[in-house]
């Protein structure tokens, strides 16, 4: 097959010269990505340096953010970003995978097209619209729901501290997490759907032929085959959740605190950057850019971890199937 393609190409194009220039072009494109990433990292780190050198390691371990006193501790915002992302994944991942399975394995063919369109439309809604909806409609309506959870679960040790007294306006980690969950469902769904559709029909038929029920077939044939892709889908959603700015800014409540209570107000790194950079100077500006660097580093670390997980899982799977 390769030789065939090769001969057709040489007969049409300019031979080795075209081959070489294509290679250079592709290489340049690849390097450009790396260069842009590197430049972003270098310049932002340089801009943030006054804050890093002023605070040292306590930039990420200190929980006080006090600009007039020049104390810049990002821990509360790192915590906020992590908690909101975690909540959003807890809600979005099962729903998205459910939708994707429904669309690929269960839904009647006629329903698939419209359903996919509707979910994709969800991705086209601007995040500020989600934010406004969240702050004007969802947050106040959720307060009684939060109260109920607090009344039921608040008395239990440990669990009770997670579901402690809700804030009166409803603007909280939980509300932010829920809004972001809705925003990342389309991404995770559409990628999971693609992943599921790559599962060879032969595998599924084999499972069914062995007498598996539909669920056993999904569990035994679909999931193992698509694990890596699913992790990719989740990471993509997580990236969106961590970087989401305006919707979170509107619904998270803008307090600087670290608390287990998911019904309390907090703040997240992108929100802090966007809302405070306008009126900042000197070290304060540097500290805000520093938040960006920390966020960037977190994304890289999570991506790397995810890749490692996928690699291990795939190796295990190959071992099992062969």
């Amino acid at each position: 097959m390769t030789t065939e393609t090769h001969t057709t190409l040489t007969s049409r194009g300019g031979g080795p010269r075209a081959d070489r220039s294509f290679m250079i072009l592709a290489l340049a494109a690849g390097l450009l990505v790396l260069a842009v990433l590197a430049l972003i990292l270098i310049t932002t780190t340089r801009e943030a340096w006054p804050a890093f050198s002023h605070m040292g390691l306590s930039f990420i371990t200190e929980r006080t953010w006090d600009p007039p006193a020049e104390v810049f501790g990002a821990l509360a915002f790192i915590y906020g970003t992590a908690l909101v992302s975690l909540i959003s994944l807890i809600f979005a991942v099962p729903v998205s995978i459910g939708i994707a399975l429904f669309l690929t394995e269960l839904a009647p063919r006629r329903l698939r097209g419209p359903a996919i369109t509707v979910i994709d439309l969800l991705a086209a809604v601007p995040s500020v619209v989600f934010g406004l909806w969240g702050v004007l409609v969802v947050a106040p309506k959720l307060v009684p729901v939060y109260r109920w959870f607090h009344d039921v679960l608040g008395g239990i040790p440990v669990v009770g501290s997670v579901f402690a007294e809700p804030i009166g306006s409803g603007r909280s980690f939980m509300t932010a997490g829920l809004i972001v969950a809705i925003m990342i469902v389309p991404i995770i769904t559409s990628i999971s759907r693609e992943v599921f559709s790559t599962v060879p029909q032969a595998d599924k038929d084999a499972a069914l032929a062995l007498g598996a029920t539909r669920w056993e077939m999904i569990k035994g044939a679909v999931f193992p085959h698509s694990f890596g892709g699913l992790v990719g889908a989740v990471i993509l959603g997580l990236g969106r959740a961590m970087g989401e700015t305006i919707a979170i800014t509107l619904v998270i409540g803008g307090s600087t605190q670290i608390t287990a209570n998911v019904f309390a107000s907090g703040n997240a790194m992108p929100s802090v950057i966007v809302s405070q950079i306008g009126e900042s100077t000197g070290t304060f500006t540097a500290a805000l850019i520093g938040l960006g660097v920390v966020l960037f580093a977190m994304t890289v670390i999570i991506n790397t971890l995810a890749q490692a997980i996928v690699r291990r899982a795939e190796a295990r799977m190959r071992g099992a199937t062969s």
Partner: protein
Amino acid sequence: MNRNVLSRRVLAGVALVATIALAGCGGNDDSGDTGTDAGSGSNQYANLSGELKGGGASFPNAFYTEAIAEFKGVASKLSVTYNSVGSGQGKKDFGANLVDFAGSDSLVKDTDGVPADSFLYVPTVAAPITVSYNLNGVDKLQLSPDTLAKIFQAEITSWDDAAIKADNPGVTLPAKKITVAHRSDGSGTTNNFTKYLKAAAPSTWKLDSGDTVNWPASTQGAEKNTGVAQLIKSSDGGIGYVDFSDARESGLKFAAIKNKDGQFVAASLDGATAALDGATVKDDLTYDPLNAAGATTYPITAPTYILVRTKYDDPAKKDLVKGFVTYLLNDGQTLAPEVDFAPLPDALKTKALAQLDKIQ
């Protein structure tokens, strides 16, 4: 598959960042053709023509927008734009020569990027910052500076606290939790409000002053004046600081604050002008109307300035800036109350006009 997903994600991110970077690099130099026509208009502004760019504080934005719209009627050939990007950004842009004048609620600091002696302060208007609240059944609320400081420091957490009761004899206060709302974005309004608390309740207030301060964990933040107003409105038991026009527009109730002379005064434009009268004006025309003396003074009154250059390289530009700011100080002052801003007292206005003659 997974590798593909990841690399696609990275690509998308890079594309986005590149777009932003390109947008940021976009030219921003002003090349307004500033030629002064030998106009035969009857008013002093008719022969001004060209383009003026300004930007900065969002606090006086409503006033500047109104004044610019009216100015169009007398100086039809001069186009003035004002971008409400915040005082800090305004000063940065002014220092980088991107705008012809800047609006600022705060004084210029060394770190703002504007060289000293390269600019002049011109006070334009002032406005009260209200302490707005939402408390069912309480239509009249009085607060002393110490009580106010304790509320915003979350030391007083319930509306029926003894300190609030002491400020409001005869008023039945519910045992409701106080929800404190503050600005989550960096803001000149926060700066002035915290400065006031620092000046009026020096022994109680511990959070210092600034565009962003370290608010207690139990308080809540919202974006801009409208966001804070909305947050107060949506939480029963809420209290926060909101500028006068937004508080009125949102239909919020606001508290009367005990001034330096011991009188409880509710936020009003008259109270603000009284505060300007009671403030000491420095030689560079900066003044601090916060916690000013006077029986009718509303103590939380914030000033705002326009920064102009001491020397404009383009003499035509100088005339344009002078023309526009003169308009703000004369005809503009009568427009101010319509948009909920307090005009300058006559003495300060005269000084401000004299300040303009120093522009070269």
